[in-house]
């Protein structure tokens, strides 16, 4: 899809390892579009000006990252088409933009062709120029891909904008919640419900390598782990277990599902190979062993166990040997999730009546709590390992009213906590890999 990458020396740099208290001011010029192309896209997509719409997507993405401060378009002095050819850097300097994004959209052979450029305003230099062609329906993704490229060029790390979130949409009273699987773009657009709400569904998780999802469904009142292909809608139950299977996740290569199987009051961890259907038992202990999560190289598994008396986080080799407890702080720990970068484990912690989302190194050292609340859990990593998405539930009043569940995101730094807007209440988010890797 990408045609012309032109590398230039990076003068602007954004440090993302610390909380960024002064986001980089930049200008996202509306992508220029000729009249004929504009009308064609208006007809196909019912969007008035796809050039400005794409720039709005880029702007929103960069703003929500917390690392950039897109400036108000009203202050822009230069017209989009001319800016894309050769920006008058003095003008952009005047409004304090340090970087500038310009571009052009055309309708060619029933396709959407986009070119964009990233400029270093202070150095008066082009930093990057890319062009790509795609089907018009992908126009929002174009905005996300531009955002990812800009993020990567300015921070030195991959972006996370061309991604989707699968989650559980919730409605109804707290005692009788109706839950459906739902999927949306990372920025909340294109929300779609994947199940009807006839049965309780929980904990959907993306396959890191394809558009498959694993989740728990109470279909026919038998809580079992299922596999869903979100392109075709086909569903199947995973394995043939004589009892509840739950807490599923994929292995990093996408070939196995790891999950818990509960029987006779104890829960152990099992895997099932999706190709040959071979089921393997990984733990065998009278305690509750659940919430398993593979390390990105597939060699280790982090999991939750109460074998010490309370919920704690353990790691073991992927064959179940060398079990080692890693959480030793105050309180109880659950939902370990291995970072895609491999160096950290995100978790939920309950201490003195409050819930925390935190991270620790894989040996349990360096525990850092990112956010505290009445109730929150189930962190899921952005594919670049920089942001966590999780859900939060509110306390109800004496009459049991005022319950809500919402998705939130927070940077690994503990800064930039944000509500992720969804059409209904929401929980159990899972972040996909980059769609365009």
């Amino acid at each position, binding site marked *: 899809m990408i045609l012309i990458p032109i590398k230039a020396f990076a003068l602007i740099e954004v440090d993302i390892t610390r909380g960024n208290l002064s986001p980089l001011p930049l200008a996202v010029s509306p992508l220029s579009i000729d009249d004929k192309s504009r009308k064609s896209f208006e007809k196909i997509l019912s969007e008035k000006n796809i050039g400005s719409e794409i720039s709005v997507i880029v702007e929103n993405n960069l703003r929500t990252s917390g690392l950039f401060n897109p400036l108000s378009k009203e202050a822009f002095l230069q017209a989009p088409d001319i800016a894309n050819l050769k920006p008058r850097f003095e003008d952009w300097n005047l409004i304090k933009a340090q970087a500038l994004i310009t571009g052009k959209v055309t309708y060619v052979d029933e396709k959407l062709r986009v070119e964009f450029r990233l400029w270093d305003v202070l150095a008066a230099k082009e930093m990057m120029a890319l062009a790509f062609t795609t089907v018009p329906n992908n126009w929002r993704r174009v905005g996300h891909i531009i955002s990812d490229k800009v993020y990567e060029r300015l921070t030195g790390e991959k972006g996370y904008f061309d991604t989707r979130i699968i989650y559980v949409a919730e409605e109804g*009273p*707290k*005692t*009788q*919640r109706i839950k459906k699987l739902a999927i949306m773009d990372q920025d909340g657009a294109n929300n779609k419900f994947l199940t009807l709400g006839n049965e*309780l569904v*929980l*904990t959907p998780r993306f396959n890191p390598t394809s558009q498959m999802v694993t989740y*728990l469904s109470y279909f026919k*009142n038998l*809580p079992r782990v299922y596999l869903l292909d979100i392109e075709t809608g086909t569903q199947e139950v995973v394995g043939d277990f004589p*009892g*509840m299977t*739950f*807490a599923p996740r994929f292995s990093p290569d996408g070939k196995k599902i790891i999950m*818990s199987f*509960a029987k*006779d*009051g*104890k*829960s152990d961890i099992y895997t099932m190979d999706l190709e040959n259907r071979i089921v393997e038992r990984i733990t065998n202990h009278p305690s*509750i062993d*659940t*919430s398993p999560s593979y390390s990105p190289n597939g060699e280790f598994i982090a999991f*939750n166990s*109460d074998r010490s008396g*309370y*919920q704690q986080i353990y790691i073991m080799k992927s064959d179940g040997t060398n079990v080692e407890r890693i959480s030793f702080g105050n309180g109880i720990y*659950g*939902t370990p999730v291995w970072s895609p970068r491999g160096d950290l484990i995100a978790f*939920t912690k*309950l201490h003195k*009546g409050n819930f925390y989302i935190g991270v620790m190194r894989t040996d349990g050292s360096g525990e850092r709590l990112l956010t505290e609340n*009445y*109730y929150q*859990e*189930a962190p899921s990593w952005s594919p670049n390992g920089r942001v966590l998405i999780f859900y939060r*539930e509110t*306390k*109800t*009043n*004496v*009459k*049991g*009213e005022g*319950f809500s569940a919402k998705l939130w995101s927070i940077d690994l730094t503990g800064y930039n906590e944000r509500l992720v807007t969804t059409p209904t209440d929401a*929980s*159990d988010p899972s972040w996909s890999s980059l769609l365009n890797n």
Partner: protein
Amino acid sequence: MIFNKIFKNALLVLAACLVLSACATKKEVATDDVTISGQMQSDVYTGTDSVEYLADGVKDRVFFATNESILTTASRETLRAQAAWLRKNSDINVVLEGHADERGTREYNLALGERRANSAKDYLMTYGISSDRISVLSYGKERPVDAGSSPLAWSKNRRSVTVKAN
């Protein structure tokens, strides 16, 4: 628990105040707390608020302490009554639905609900009910009976409910 003792003593004082109708400003708090203390014992629900009956005098549910699946004396009594009734009604099968309160992670709570229901199942089996007649279903924290966010509400939600399957 020491905390509970202090708490109860405080309640007695407050209750006394109520009788004398001298502590007008604390009245609301006090009435609430008196209700709580009357319906919980060491973290386990002892009231009858949400309880239903399988048959005359046969309660349908038992309650648990936080993170626990141990049966209390009262729970064992309830389950013995259920077992007696099940022995008499040998054509009836049951589902034991295990639940947790909202103060835990979803996945752990699913396992905990399963453990609680099995704790009840084991007890029914020791009183002669065949395991073929009992199935277990955990709802974790998904189906609270009380939507409240108080220790009392949570105590009602930590339960195993025996439901007729046919």
